[in-house]
């Protein structure tokens, strides 16, 4: 039982690391496609945490959640890719820095 605990927390740490790498990547990288990939990385880090918790509790709830998240992530990427295509078509080789006509 003690060994299981250790394994669970390792998965949790890995999930947190994936989430952080994705988050930093989203903030640092300027290529729109790589930013999309970073969002996916963040979501998958969360998925790993869900599965790890689900395994520790011994119930399937966390695993069903992951299925929902996969579907939502797919829908999000479809829209995101559409937006990226629209932006790149208007100005090829655009990076996130070029989207600065509106000053925040």
């Amino acid at each position, binding site marked *: 039982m003690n060994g299981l605990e250790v394994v669970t927390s390792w998965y949790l740490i890995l999930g947190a690391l994936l989430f952080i790498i994705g988050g930093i990547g989203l903030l640092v990288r300027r290529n729109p496609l790589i930013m999309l990939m970073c969002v996916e990385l963040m979501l998958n880090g*969360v998925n790993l945490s869900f599965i790890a918790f689900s395994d520790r*509790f011994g119930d399937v*709830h*966390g695993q069903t959640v992951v299925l929902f998240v996969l579907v939502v992530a797919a829908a999000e990427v479809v829209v995101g890719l559409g937006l990226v295509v629209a932006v790149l078509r208007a100005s090829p080789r655009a990076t996130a820095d070029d989207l600065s006509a509106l000053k*925040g």
Partner: protein
Amino acid sequence: MPSLEELFNETFASPSVDWWVLVPQIILVGAALGLLLVASLAPRALPAWASTVVTIATGAATAITAAIQWTDWGSAPRSTLAGAFVSDGFSLLITVLVGAGVVMTALVAHSALDRYGMAPPEFAALLLASAAGAVVMAGANDLIVLFLGLESLSIALYVLIALAGRRASSRESAMKYFVLGAFSSAFFLYGIALVYGATGGTNLSRISEFLFGTVREDDYLLLAGVALLLVGLGFKIAAVPFHFWAPDVYEGAPSPVTGYLASIAKAAGFAAMLRVLYVAVLQQGTAWSPIIVALAFASLSVGAVMAICQSDVKRMLAFSSISHAGFVLVGLAAVDPDIVDRLWADFGGSVGVAADLGDGVSSAVFYLVAYSFMALGSFAVLSAVVGSSGDPDDGTSRHDLSRYGGLARRRPVLALAFAVLLLAQAGVPLTAGFVAKFEVIRAAVGEGIYVLAAVAMVTAVVSAFAYLRVVLTMYAPEAAATSGDDAPTARISRPRWGDLPLTTVLAIALAVAVTLIVGVLPQTLLEWSADAALSIFP
């Protein structure tokens, strides 16, 4: 050894579904899908008025259904789908608000669709889909259902903003909203994962029962989860410091969509926040209350100060919407730690305790409803002003303050309506804005958060300057206000509604009417919000 069939029945006991509870969502989603289906199968393109009529009818049907459900059932919660969704006074009030918001957005958008190059059936279907997401968020009693509602609201909104893709500013603002929206959704989801890890469930009522049933003061996993949930929702409601997307997105989005974004999307975010904080993790009230106070403090001051600095009216309204979010947060922050202790001692909540807590929540709900109509009306006016002066170009300062100079002479009624809406946002008596601000500050004082109440009052005065500046520009003598460059519009000699689109006029009139009626006779809406607020407590 159980047979496979027994195992199946045991594992997959399907929850009982109370279909009547789900009627508002079914109407919205059904109309959205039906419209898309008909539009794609029809041999010719549907006329724009057809999809507008369908959207308005759907929005009205949703609001009316929710109102009927509320009068039929009262405010008592009815949960369905194994407790994942709940229909109570609170969710029904937000549903009515969402329905009204859909009607007004469709009215304003009708004349603007062509100008922005947006396809009518797609616009209508996306609007209805995002409204369905908002309604799901209002009634979600499970964090995962909440997440699904949030995502259907957001994903539809990303596309709605990008629909005017001919304009670079629309593409840019959609991209910005998408990246930050996805970022915040990931935070929200991670928050759900941590709360699940700390409590073993995602059902809000069950989390609450679990927390009140166990004595755990400092559960860092739970606190980190709640903090991440607040970050995710903070982005959606554009509370400082998670606000930096708002001015750009509001400015770049088509004005009707901006109105929707500022009112309904924000109200749905607040509904979710309310339910998470007050249903699921009320037991940790002493932990999250300071965070809400800090968010409110930052949103109030940054929103008010930045609103003054803007020369663009649309950006000014974006920052003012941030400061309004701060006011709603003041209502949410009004939790007395003693009450949480008393709830702890006697879980189940005696009515007296709920009534004490309900004061802040009820003021927040009232503020949300009042503000939503003011925001929808204000952005409708913006849409009318730009639309009437026939400016197809893609400049980024389309709503420069100078453009509003002399509006009172050119279009006295439109200017008067805008003045009423702006003064209501400033909190002038006899408007809904005054009652809303008064209630929120009263709740804060009642809970002893004097500093926050004082800050709220000071920033109300500060941001009043930003609104008054627009009003004064509109009513200033022409020569002083503008140079001669908008001479063509100044030559319109018959100032009247006639050349404005009738649908936009209708939406503005509706917003002004609600703002004034609620301002003069606030009692009914106050009772409704109090009723709604009490219904969310277990």
